[in-house]
């Protein structure tokens, strides 16, 4: 066996052990060492050279990056997640033809979709979705993310929240918690426009707070413009498109002059 490959696999074992010990400092250190070592392999993207050990090298590199992605979720580092995911992606798309499919593939793709949803990057969400085959779309991990996006767009927020109970993997919890926060902000934004007032207990229930104090805290921080009167929350509604009393004369004069100038040019 190639000495470089043995070195990488030994290091990788140590890295995995550190991950299971939940020793995040050591594991991030080992991970950066691993990534440096991986650059020595010429069979990896973007070179894709056909070296004798190509399959083993690609497989171990894929495993490394998969673990890296999962590690970044556990630490809750979204930027690291994005970076690692983009490094991992070529192994699924371009190297897919000469490697057996990874059992983690759909799980990680689903995680990425969820991340895009949490960060409200819907356009990228759909771009990623287009890359998936019909069989991939049937996979529970992917389906979960797709259904979430639909309910989110429709506004069926309690469906989004109930989806939290049936997450396919434990790693999804991190993003689901973030999503719950996003949903709360959305609900707050919608209620503000849709209701004139809400009783405090209703508001607490809708905004998913366990106690009224937390609700009051939230209102103080995020929506100081809401008023609390006689046991209910009153929303200040912006008066929009009020009948216009004044004639916007300056604007009108400017427009009329520009018409005159254009017409003169025609005639």
């Amino acid at each position, binding site marked *: 066996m190639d000495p470089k490959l043995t070195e990488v696999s030994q290091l990788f074992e140590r890295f995995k052990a550190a991950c299971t010990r939940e020793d995040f400092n050591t594991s991030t250190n080992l991970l950066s060492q691993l990534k440096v070592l991986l650059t020595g392999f010429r069979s990896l993207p973007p070179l894709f050279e056909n070296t004798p050990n190509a399959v083993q090298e690609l497989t171990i590199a894929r495993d490394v990056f998969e673990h890296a992605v999962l590690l970044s979720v556990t630490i809750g580092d979204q930027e690291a997640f994005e970076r690692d995911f983009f490094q991992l992606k070529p192994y699924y798309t371009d190297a897919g033809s000469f490697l057996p499919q990874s059992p983690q593939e759909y799980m990680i793709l689903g995680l990425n979709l969820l991340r895009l949803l949490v960060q409200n990057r*819907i*356009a*990228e969400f*759909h*771009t990623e*979705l*287009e*890359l998936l085959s*019909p069989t991939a779309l049937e996979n529970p991990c992917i389906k979960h993310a*797709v259904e979430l996006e*639909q309910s989110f*767009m*429709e*506004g*069926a*927020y*309690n*469906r989004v929240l*109930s989806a939290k109970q049936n997450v396919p993997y434990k790693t999804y919890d991190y993003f689901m918690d973030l999503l719950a926060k996003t949903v709360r902000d*959305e*609900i707050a*934004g*919608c*209620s*503000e*426009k*849709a*209701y*004139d007032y*809400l*009783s405090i207990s*209703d508001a607490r229930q809708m905004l998913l707070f366990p106690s009224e104090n937390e609700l009051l805290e939230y209102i103080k921080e995020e929506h100081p413009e809401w008023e609390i009167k006689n046991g209910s929350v009153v929303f200040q509604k912006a008066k929009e*498109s*009020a*009948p*216009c009393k004044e004639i*916007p004369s300056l604007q*009108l004069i400017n*427009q009329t002059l520009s*018409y005159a100038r*254009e017409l003169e*040019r*025609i005639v």
Partner: protein
Amino acid sequence: MTQDVEMKEQHQPSNSTTSSPSTLHHLKEIASLIETGAYAKETRRIQRAVRLTNTLRRKLKASVLYAFLNFALSAGSESFNRLISYLPKEDEHEMEVDTATSVTQAPAKHPLPELEIYCYLLVLIFLIDQKKHNEAKACSSASIARLKNLNRRTVDVLASRLYSYYSLSYELTGDLAEIRGSLLALHRIATLRHDELGQETLLNLLLRNYLHYNLYDQAEKLRSKAPRFEAHSNQQFCRYLFYLGKIRTIQLEYTDAKESLLQAARKAPAAALAFRVQCNKWAVIVRLLLGEIPERTVFMQKGMENALRPYFELTNAVRIGDLELFKSVAEKFSSTFSTDRTHNLIVRLRHNVIRTGLRNISISYSRISLADVAKKLRLDSANPVADAESIVAKAIRDGAIDATLDRANGWMVSKETGDIYSTNEPQLAFNSRIAFCLNMHNEAVRALRFPPNSHKEKESAEKRRERQQQEQELAKHIAEEDDDEF
């Protein structure tokens, strides 16, 4: 000089119509057209030659091609031998007869590169028409290798045609991913050589290549960074608009997508029916996603009724706002939608169906309970009333309906629609329409003018100075007048 050229051009078509309609004869005429074009450095003539070839496409036979290659290329040359090897060899006998006559006619000479490239193009078209895909691939790759070493403006037109067939031959065998690198290299070469037609063609081929594998992200990155200039070929521009529309649709920029797709459908030549059908399919979906309902005439266009049928029924479901009907239509035509690769877009439409249904309810009832809303929308979930409540709330926030919710009673109360004419809204709408008309007029006038620099060469230095002076004076005059006005 210019008169002379025009005279000649008029002669040639009349010749070809009166003389015997043998294909070989036509090909020879085209060859001479290319030759004169190459010597006079006029790409216009070569364009004509390519157009004429298209009309001959059906009549091409191996024997005719064999004879033509003999006529155009010197017998022993490398490209001659290579091209001959691609042609089928069954009717060797017939060929001998033909060649004997043509060889005597053609004087031994060094062939022009334009003519050589034209021969490649002709053989390639023939191979694709005969469905000999593997030979076509080999032939196109050889021609591309040859093209890389040629840097002549008169070859550009032929080269851009060759690029399209190169990509087509690989698409037919399903190996489009293979040539991506080589297309990118060609695009770079074309950019360096200021071959705008080539850039345009190659950019479209690359976009097609990416979209074939649903790589919207890469396609958009390439498109936004590639140099843009005024379109040289209408067909290429249509394709570009179509690809642009597709990319924008996927990235949820529906307004821009609609504009590109409709423009592509309108600009496409009448003969390109399949292309227009594709454009219309996408345009219909985008308009539905925008909340518009396309008119019935869109679906009744000549030759498209059958192809657009699934989309017509879909539109109907969205228009009524009936989720059940929408679901059944989506299932009924699911195979069509997945071959059109619009399935994911249809999934997005569900949300619009709910919105339309909600809008209908809000218009017809001044007050309705949320339980009834859920029933009318046919929401099938564990907790329909709570779902209905948050869906209505979101619709209100997005401005789709004008209503308020009453939590205590579980009602949705629609607001009276205010008098729009008491606001500034109509005036703004009127202004934007006037601006559009004036802008269109100005653009039309600008399009009527001569392209810049077209008369520069004839102008002597002295005259130019004089003209510039005049222009400056005029500008000053106008500026003064403008000042007076205010």
